């Protein structure tokens, strides 16, 4: 059995969370509320020391670099970081209802940046690259003896046909009669097989997490394993 305070604390909290399986109870609620507080604090601290301090404070007041590392070489001053700092301060105004409209400015900047960077990248990586990956020669030849690899070839065409059918399923404004209907139906079935695979992989992840916890309880804490 472990003698470390950290491990005992962790074990107690683990049991508190798992007590939810019996029913919702004060121990579980305590643990969940503790998690909300701890994680918010943890993220804020790391954001401050890893990003805000070196990339904003130090760039504005180079001497600040010496606070965290007395031997640091001082970087150049970059007054431009006043822009994001100012926007950041405006963001905090959301807490004061009368001035909260100003907090829309930094949000607008964030939305514009996200969408602006995202648009072309998504177009490239999720549309063009996927098309590029789908448009492959439909007759695969084995390098060894020059014969046709029929298995791989058939798979290639099934993959392409499946993609097309799913795309047909995701079109909405073409009515539902004619040749599209059976294709869309087939697309739905392909999607279901895909979801089945996602389902299985998600179950796997959940189980690994459980095994990890039991490992901690039985091994690190109780020392049985």
């Amino acid at each position, binding site marked *: 059995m472990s003698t470390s305070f950290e491990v005992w604390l962790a074990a107690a909290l683990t049991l508190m969370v798992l007590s939810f399986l019996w029913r*919702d109870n004060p121990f579980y609620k305590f643990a969940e509320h503790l998690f909300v507080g701890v994680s918010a604090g943890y993220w804020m601290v790391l954001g401050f020391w890893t990003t805000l301090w070196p990339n904003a404070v130090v760039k504005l007041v180079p001497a600040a670099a010496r606070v965290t590392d007395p031997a640091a070489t001082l970087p150049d001053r970059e007054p431009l970081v006043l822009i994001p700092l100012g926007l950041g301060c405006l963001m905090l105004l959301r807490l004061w209802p009368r001035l909260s409209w100003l907090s829309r400015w930094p949000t607008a900047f964030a939305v514009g940046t996200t969408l602006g960077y995202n648009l*072309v990248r998504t177009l490239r990586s999720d549309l*063009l690259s996927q098309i590029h990956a789908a448009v492959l020669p*439909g007759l695969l030849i084995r390098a060894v003896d020059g014969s046709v690899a029929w298995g791989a070839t058939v798979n290639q065409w099934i993959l392409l046909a499946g993609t097309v059918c799913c795309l047909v399923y995701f079109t909405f404004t073409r009515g539902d009669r004619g040749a599209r209907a059976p294709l869309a139906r087939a697309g739905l079935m392909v999607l279901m097989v895909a979801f089945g695979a*996602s389902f299985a992989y998600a179950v796997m992840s959940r189980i690994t997490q459980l095994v990890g916890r039991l490992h901690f309880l039985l091994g690190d804490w109780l020392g049985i394993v």
Partner: protein
Amino acid sequence: MNWLTSIHWNLVLWLGGALGAMAWGIRQVRRNGPPRLRRIAGLEAVDDAVGRATEEGRPVLYVAGTQDLDDVQTVASLGILGSVGARAARYGCELIMPTDRSLVMAAGREVLRESYTRAGRPDDFVADMVSYVSDDQFGFAARVDGLIARRRPGAVFLQGAFYAESLLLAEAGAQAGAVQVAGTAMNHQLPFLVAACDHVLIGEEFFAAEAYLSRDPDRLGSLQGQDLVKDAVIVVLVVGACLVTLADITSWGWLANARDLLLKVVQP
């Protein structure tokens, strides 16, 4: 000029084409009215589910996801809530809506008040239909599960952004024998919801549902434009695959040129 050569022309082509298609779609809808819409089974199930619950004398339960109002899926869900609420009002069926955010509660009340008024039954609207339960994820699910076990709703709607709590909610509904209609764009939860619910609006269907129900011409037009882009993608895929294959097995130069041109257009 070096900057002319440094433009990704094929990206410009696709982007321009997509934007053009959407502009065309919106113009088309504004001029000629809404397009022919494919039926979405999950959306048609809304009516039946509410009807069945009414016949059995059981209430309808609606959960608008577990995220706050700043999530697009929550907003889309409130659009669907409007039409579910209108049907419940028309049939005189009781509606219960537990929420896990106070903002969603307030917005839900507004939406339902309007649907009940529009259905001509403003007096049937009671603010308490929409209640705030709890902010915490599994705590919310546990209490909604209790509610489902006690009230035994005839229809359960799980529409919006869900995380792991979706499983708990769907399981409780299945146990109560409710008709369950789910809708979400959370890819990780979709498979579980499909397995546990009777009807599911899958990803894009969920967003399209909002356009279907709102009948907003711009939304429908944009949808029509997006469909045009998807059609173009389908054509490129089919033509491209055939072209690449033929160019591979024949030795015709023009085929190889055509293939190279096409691959350049889709070069990421």
